[in-house]
């Protein structure tokens, strides 16, 4: 490794150069190697080999998204419960109370979603 003041920047330049080379290399290789055949079929949406029928733009009930988003949030928050549960008997009551507060705040979030009528399927 080069030493000295500019040596530090040289390392940085080395990394930057590597990165640019890698990116340009892979993207360029892709350009070079891939055959370029412009046919109408190529611009069709690929749907398991069957010709697509109708438009791709269809309405999906917005509530699917809302449910999905809610699920992600509450699902991932549960990650904090696992380490807590593993060492539960070594921690005092304070840790228990803290976790109750944590779950309480989560419950508040759920109550919010419920009151805002997100959980109802209209």
């Amino acid at each position: 490794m080069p030493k000295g003041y500019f040596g530090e920047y040289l390392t940085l330049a080395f990394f930057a150069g590597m990165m640019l080379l890698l990116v340009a290399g892979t993207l360029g290789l892709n350009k070079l190697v891939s055959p370029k055949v412009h046919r109408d079929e190529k611009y069709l949406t690929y749907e398991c080999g069957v010709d697509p029928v109708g438009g791709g733009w269809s309405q999906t009930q917005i509530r699917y998204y809302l449910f999905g988003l809610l699920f992600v949030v509450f699902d991932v928050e549960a990650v904090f419960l696992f380490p807590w549960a593993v060492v539960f008997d070594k921690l005092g009551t304070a840790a228990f109370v803290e976790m109750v507060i944590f779950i309480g705040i989560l419950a508040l979030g759920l109550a919010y979603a419920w009151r805002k009528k997100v959980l109802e399927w209209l």
Partner: protein
Amino acid sequence: MRVPGAAYLIVSAILFTTGAVGVLVRRNVLVMFMCIELMLNAVNLSFVTLGRMMHALDGQVAVFFVLVVAAAEVVVGLAIIVAIFRRRASADADQINLLKW
């Protein structure tokens, strides 16, 4: 066979670069978003590997927090994208250009 820690770090670096390049070259907001998630996961991989190499738990604890924060971001981000999609019917970053200079 035991895989050396360095291999994981290299994978993590490649994932991170792939994600970064993806954000820069792709124009679909959802794909850009996925690329950023890829970068975050590269970070997770490197935290876990480094923690394991040092026989410490800090790395895994860090991953917990990164995961949770990433989930919160996913939710907010998707909500914003859905809001735009409902008004624009498009997720192309080049078409989101009302505000300039």
